[in-house]
């Protein structure tokens, strides 16, 4: 199927704006249309279209053999996806919440990640595991986790986190086309609108955000390339997912001339872009929502320190979630919000 035959997309206006959920839905739609090997499976993804509506309308359009509900067994979902990949399909399993990925972890870590290696490329697992992650929706400790660091530790897995509708579509298409297993974490807090961390201010829609302009049809945003959201000289800020917006808002609010880098892919990491920036600014702030200890911020900090040691003018700062489960009522005390980020910036810039 060629690009021209791709189905009509959800919105047709030029410069049309999508929410992240719509962008993800569109990416799936396009890939289902382009590649008959793409199949979507997961809990409630079929008739209902997913608890966040990411797969809405797709079963109706592509049929039950392409988009289907599964038993509630994350191990089974990943396990059969490995087998489908070995057959030659390109499965896109959804894990309903990242918090529920652990029953499928063995199939990811011991199987999907090592299939190509152990079989000397006789068999591969070209799957993209989509899963909503992160907090900020009063989901309590089992609907808020950010387990990305675990996956970055596993050789053979790629880990991707989009932060805008534009990238969500392009990165998801690239992930599906990738022949390696990709863990695609979707920051659920910004599915339907960006979030600057000020939970007590009115909610903004994606339509007001420049990166909600999503081109129609097929495009791929390459994995392994970071995006410099804003150039600056005072400090390099590394973030991904929701925290790109929060960190950006704090820098703007404080008038800090930060170079804000949206990593987009954690593995393989675009270390060149990071290194160049820190060599320029001499300072580095890393922001993520996951628990601090052994979070991906640790790896970033270690890498920056290794590569840019002689350029560093102040200790690299990590701003992260706390090393506790994600609490329910104190969600905003847990969340690495503007105050925590602001303090770290102050320390870095010597205010």
């Amino acid at each position: 199927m060629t690009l021209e035959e791709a189905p009509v997309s959800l919105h047709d206006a030029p410069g049309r704006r999508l929410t992240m959920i719509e962008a993800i839905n569109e990416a799936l739609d396009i890939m289902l249309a382009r590649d008959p090997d793409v199949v979507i499976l997961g809990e409630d993804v079929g008739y209902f279209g997913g608890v966040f509506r990411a797969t809405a309308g797709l079963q109706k359009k592509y049929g039950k053999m392409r988009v289907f509900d599964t038993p509630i067994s994350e191990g089974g979902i990943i396990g059969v996806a490995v087998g489908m990949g070995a057959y030659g399909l390109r499965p896109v399993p959804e894990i309903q919440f990242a918090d529920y990925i652990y029953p499928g972890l063995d199939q990811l870590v011991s199987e999907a990640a090592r299939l190509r290696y152990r079989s000397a490329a006789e068999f591969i697992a070209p799957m993209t595991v989509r899963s909503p992650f992160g907090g900020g929706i009063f989901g309590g400790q089992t609907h808020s986790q950010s387990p990305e660091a675990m996956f970055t530790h596993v050789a053979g897995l790629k880990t991707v986190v989009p932060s805008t509708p534009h990238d969500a579509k392009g990165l998801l298409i690239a992930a599906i086309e990738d022949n390696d297993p990709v863990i695609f974490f979707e920051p659920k807090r910004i599915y339907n609108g960006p979030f600057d961390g000020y939970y007590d201010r009115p909610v903004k829609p994606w339509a007001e955000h420049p990166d909600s302009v999503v081109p129609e049809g097929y495009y791929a945003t390459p994995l392994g390339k970071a995006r410099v959201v804003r150039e600056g000289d005072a400090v390099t800020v590394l973030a991904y997912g929701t925290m790109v917006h929060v960190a950006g808002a704090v820098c703007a609010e404080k008038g800090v001339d930060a170079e804000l880098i949206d990593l987009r892919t954690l593995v393989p990491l675009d270390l060149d872009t990071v290194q160049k920036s820190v060599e320029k600014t001499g300072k580095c702030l890393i922001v993520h929502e996951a628990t601090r200890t052994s979070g991906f911020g640790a790896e970033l900090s270690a890498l920056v320190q290794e590569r840019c040691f002689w350029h560093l003018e102040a200790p690299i700062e990590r701003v992260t979630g706390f090393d506790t489960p994600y609490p329910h009522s104190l969600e905003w005390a847990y969340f690495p919000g503007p105050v925590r980020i602001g303090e770290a910036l102050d320390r870095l810039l010597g205010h």
Partner: protein
Amino acid sequence: MPEPHYRPGDAVDFRHIVVPPAGAQPRPDETCPPAETFALCNDLIRVLDEAGRAVGPWNPQLDPATLRRMLRMMALTRAFDERMYRGQRQGKTSFYMKSAGEEATAVAPAMALDFEDMVFPSYRQQGILITRGYPLVDMINQIYSNRADRLKGRQLPIMYSARSHNFFTISGNLATQLPQAVGWAMASASRGDTRIAATWVGEGSTSEGDFHSAMTFAAVYNVPVVFNVVNNQWAISSFSGFAGAERATFAARAIGYGIAGLRVDGNDPLAVYAAERWAADRARSNMGPTLIEHFTYRAEGHSTSDDPGAYRSAQERSEWPLGDPIARLRDHLIALGEWSDDQQAAMDQELAEAVRAATKEAEKNGILGHGLHHPFKTMFEDVFEELPWHLQEQAEQAIRERRIKWPEWKE
């Protein structure tokens, strides 16, 4: 690819569901070999017949006072659910889950078990807590995550924990409670303790690996545990066929493991009581585990986040061939001459009032997101028994942030 019989807009006709006559199911002795129960895995144990009589060998012969208590607990559960659901809609909390239509599967087992038996519920057995007399105010405090919440605002609403009432902490992760119940019961048995464990899981969740490990361990060590599979036909938007219901009953899983299995009309509180009692007695006499499938219907949405109208026919509830558990027990009591419509109406009003009062009481301690929560430092407690240095530092950070944001704030 499995497909439910009805989708939104479809007219519902449940005649394909086989409903055997009440009283027709044999009742083997509690100490029988598992194989004697296998026919019951493909049958449906029923006690209350269409005329509201309790019939057959499974009739637990409960006295009217006990029956009235059962009715009351089911009605209280429903009244509670209704008010909490409204509370969520009014923004008093983030989330709620009803058990409408399934009250019998929690209330009747809670009465059939000893209070000292440890229950490992899923998230839809509020009826157990209510039946065991846990204070409604404490339940609501938890739902509101307020400063009186015994769980310190840490858990999603309805994820209760009540050690005082032998009610295990509810997990948001499906089916994890099953091997835990087995382990608890193994420990109890190893101590010569007469307490058994009982656990609940939705039919959808039986697909998880933990279901299998729990059954395997229970079978291998002949563990005194009762597995309650609540087959309410739906798992969010997925009908039971996605858990394998079209190939075998959930009770039939027991056959595969060689343990006792029963399939019971989950909307018949007396049948549920009798089955649970049978299994509890069996476990207590060291005859090992039983798997009970409660065949029931989830009358409402999955949770406050769900819209069942998007995936199933609205007629399913009214057409459900096994009726409503509260109505059926009420009719039975009326048929016995032990109850009346007036009494029912008075009770409903009384219970609604009791729930309202408890709600008001709880609201004094705050509702979600309105500042009346547990102190900040509690967020860092209980991660470990003692606070390690890194959590100590993080607690200080959290409190400092609070001060920066609200300079006038004191804790």
